[in-house]
C-alpha cells in the first residue's frame, strides 16, 4: 500500500527539505480534500444553476444528462446545491475548528506551564463543559440565541474547545518536564516564549492530527444539526441540510438524498485517512 517516494535520492542537493515519505492513501485523500476546497471557493462559477431556482417540474428527478445528480424535492438542481453546500460545510467547519483548536491549544499549553490553581481551575471548568452532551448543548444554544452562521461557528467552537484543551495539555505536560524547558525557565523566560517557542514545536504534529480529527467531528455535528433544522437556513443548505430536505425521497431511491451523503462521507473519510497517512519525515540524514 505504501509507495516510497525517497525524494532525497533525486534531490541530492537539498536532502534536508525533501526527506519525506508519502503514502498513496495519504496523497489520494489530500487530492479529494483539495478538490472540495476548490469547489467551496469557486462554487458560484462552476454551479450550472442558481441555488434557489426551481429548474425541473419533476421532483426527486433521476440522474440525467441535464441534471447529473438529479433534482431535489422542489425540482432544484442537486449538483448546484451540493457545490454551494460545500461552502457552508467546509467553511463553517473550518472556522469552528480553527477557533476551537486555537483556544484549546493555547489554554492547554498555558495551563501546563503555569500549573497549580490555574491549571486545576481551568481543567475542572472545561471538564464540566465536556460532561454536557454535545448535541444537546448545541440545540440549546441555537434554540436560545437563534441560528446564524457566526452563532453556529461559536457554538461548534465552544463544544470542541474542551477536548482540544485536554489533548494539548496532556502533550504539553510531557514536554514541560523536558530539560530544555527547564533551561529556558532557568534563563528567566516568560510564559509567552515558553509556550510559543519551546512547547508548541514539540506538540505541533499531534495537534495537527487532532485538528483534522476534530474537523471531521465538526462536519458531522454541523450536518446533524442541519438535519434537525437548526443549522444553515433555507434556501441555502449545507450537506446535512440537503440530506434532511430530501429524506422523503429515500423511499424512491432518489439521488437527491444519496449524493449529499456521499459528499459528507468522502470529505470526512478523506480527512481521516490523510491524518493517518501524513508524510513521514525520513530521519536518516547521513546521505553521502
Amino acid at each position, binding site marked *: 500500500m505504501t509507495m516510497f517516494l525517497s525524494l532525497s535520492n533525486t534531490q541530492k542537493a537539498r536532502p534536508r527539505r525533501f526527506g519525506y515519505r508519502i503514502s498513496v492513501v495519504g496523497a489520494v485523500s489530500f487530492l479529494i480534500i483539495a478538490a472540495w476546497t476548490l469547489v467551496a471557493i469557486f462554487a458560484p462559477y462552476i454551479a450550472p444553476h442558481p441555488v434557489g431556482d426551481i429548474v425541473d417540474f419533476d421532483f426527486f428527478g433521476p440522474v440525467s444528462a441535464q441534471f447529473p445528480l438529479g433534482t431535489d424535492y422542489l425540482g432544484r438542481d442537486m449538483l448546484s446545491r451540493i457545490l454551494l453546500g460545500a461552502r457552508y460545510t467546509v467553511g463553517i467547519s473550518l472556522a469552528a475548528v480553527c477557533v476551537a483548536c486555537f483556544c484549546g491549544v493555547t489554554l492547554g499549553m498555558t495551563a501546563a506551564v503555569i500549573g497549580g490553581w490555574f491549571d486545576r481551575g481551568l481543567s475542572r471548568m472545561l471538564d464540566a463543559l465536556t460532561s454536557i452532551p454535545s448535541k444537546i448543548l448545541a440545540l440549546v444554544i441555537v434554540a436560545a440565541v437563534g441560528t446564524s452562521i457566526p452563532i453556529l461557528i461559536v457554538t461548534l467552537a465552544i463544544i470542541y474547545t474542551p477536548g482540544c484543551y485536554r489533548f494539548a495539555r496532556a502533550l504539553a505536560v510531557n514536554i514541560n518536564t523536558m530539560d*530544555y524547558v*527547564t533551561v529556558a525557565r*532557568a*534563563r528567566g523566560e516568560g510564559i509567552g516564549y515558553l509556550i510559543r517557542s519551546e512547547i508548541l*514545536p514539540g506538540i505541533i504534529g499531534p495537534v495537527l492530527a487532532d485538528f483534522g480529527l476534530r474537523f471531521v467531528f465538526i462536519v458531522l455535528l454541523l450536518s446533524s444539526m442541519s438535519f434537525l433544522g437548526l443549522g444553515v437556513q433555507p434556501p441555502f443548505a449545507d450537506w446535512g441540510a440537503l440530506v434532511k430536505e430530501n429524506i422523503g425521497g429515500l423511499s424512491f431511491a432518489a439521488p437527491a438524498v444519496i449524493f449529499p451523503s456521499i459528499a459528507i462521507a468522502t470529505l470526512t473519510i478523506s480527512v481521516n485517512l490523510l491524518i493517518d497517512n501524513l508524510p513521514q519525515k525520513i530521519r536518516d540524514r*547521513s546521505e553521502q
Partner: protein
Amino acid sequence: MSNLVEVRNLRVDAKTDSGRTVEIIRDVSFDIAEGEIVALIGESGSGKTTIALTLMGYTRPGCRIAGGKVTLSGREISNLPEHKRARRRGTEVSYVPQSAAASFNPAHKIMDQVVEVTKIHRLMPIDEARRKAVELFKALALPEPDTIGDRYPHQVSGGQLQRLSAAMALIGDPKLVIFDEPTTALDVTTQIEVLRAFKSVMKKGAIAGVYVSHDLAVVAQIADRIIVLKNGEIQEVGRTQDILHRPQHPYTRELLEAFEPAPHGRVVDRPVEPEKPLLVVKDIVAGYGRVDETGNPSVKVINKVSFELHRGKNLGIIGESGCGKSTLARVIAGILPAAQGDVLLEGKPLDRDLRRRSRNELRDLQIVFQSADTALNPAKSIADILARPLAFYHGMSGQRRDARIDQLLDMVHLPRSLRHRRPTELSGGQKQRINLARALAADAKLILCDEITSALDTVVAAAILELLKELQREHSLSYLFISHDLSTVRAICDEVVVMYAGEKIEQLSPDIMGSEAGHPYSRLLFSSVPKLDTGWLDGLEQDPHVLQAYSRR
C-alpha cells in the same frame, strides 16, 4: 567440538528508513570456550550489543544477519527459523538486559516472572521451579531469598532487581548467558555486590558468559578475555591481563588512557586572596511537597547543606543516586525554591525562586544538564538555540549575533557548519558541547554542571573535561561539578563535597580521596570504584558494618 560458541565472518546490516542499507557489523569472528567469560568492550555505536544479540539469533528490528555463521554448542543458530530459535533461547542461551527495571512487568510478582522460562519450555513442575529459583536467589546473595519472590518489582532495589533478572536468565540452565551492561545503571557500592554475585554464580555453574560493557574496570573483574570493538569491527582480542597491561592496538591504548583522566593541574602556591567567595550556600533545606510552619517540606531531600566556592575554583559534589546532589543544583539555580537557607552570589543574596531573580543574576549562574538529548529542543536549529541567550541577556541581533554564534562554536571546538543542523543530527559529545556553548553564551561566572559527562563514552567524556579546563583558563569561570564518577571529579575539582541521603558528609581535597578520607562513608565510596586490576574485586575488603549503615537498599 571444542568451543561453545563459534562466530565466523559475521556481518549484520541495518536498513535506514530511507531504504539505505548500512553495514553495522563487519566480518567479526571469535570463539567462546565452555565456562569462559568474554567481554565485548567499545564505545556506544560500536556494535557490541548487536553482536551479543546475534548469539541468540536475534537482531533488532530493521537489522538482519547478512552473512557469516553463529554456532552455539555445535549447531548453527543464525539460519534457524524463528520458532526453533525460540526453543533454544532460555535453555541454551539467555540474556540479562541493562535495565532490569524496564524488563520486569510491574503488574506481576517477581517469582512468577522468574519461573516463566521453565513454564514456556516445560522444563520442570512449577514447585520444583520455585525451589530452584529460591536456590538461585541464595546463590546470588539476595536478602530473604524465601520470600523475595512474592514481592512486586517496585518493592526491591535496583541492584536486587538486576540480580533477580540474572536469576531469571539462569533458571533454564543455559550454557551461555549474555550480560548487556548489567551494572551500568547502578551505583558503585551496589555494583560491587552485583558483580560479586554474578561472578560466583557463573564460576560455580561453569557457565560461559558474554559481558557487554563500556567500562574496562568492571570488565577486568569478571572477564577471562576481552574483545575490543570499534565501528563494528574487532580491534583487538586478548586475555584480560594482556589487554590491560600490554595493549597492542592504538585504540585500546586510547581507551585505557581515557579511563584515568589527568588530575586537575592546580596552581601551586598562589597566595590566597582574601576576596569574598563567588558562591555561598548556607544551611539549605529543600524538598518536595507542602512546607510546614517550621520550614520543613513534607519530603525532605536536602538537609542543612552549606559550602563556599571561590572564583576560578571548582567544587565537586559526589554521592550516589538519590543523595540529593542534582536537587541541590536545582535549588541553587532557583528552579526548585529552597524551604530554608540562603544562596549568595558574590556576596549578594539571591532570591530562592528564580522568577524573582533579576536578569543579571540569572545570567551569572548557568546550569548545564546531564542529558544533552533532552536539554536541547529537537525542533530548533543549533543557531536558534545559541541565539536565544544572546538576544535574551545581551540584546544582540543580526550580524553581531551571528558572529558571536560562530565564536561560541569555535570556543567549544565545533565546526561552524553545524549551526544549521538540529540536535538530533549531532553525536552525544557534540550535543554536550552545544549545551556548554549555550551556558557560555550568557557570559556566566558560575556554571553548574549536573553530571554532564555521565552519558558519554569515556574517550568523549575525557575530551569534554579537557574543554572545560581550557574554557576555565581563558574565561575565569568557576564550575560546580556534580557527578557520581570519582575519577571525573578528581580530574577537574579543587575541593570535593561528599553527600549522602541529603546531607553533606564532609568536604575534602581530591588528593586525599581514597587514602585517608575522614568519614567512613567517604572511604566506602572511594574504595568501591573499580580499578583497572583483575584482582581488585577479589581483594577488596569493606567493613560490613559501614556497608550495613550506609546501604538504603
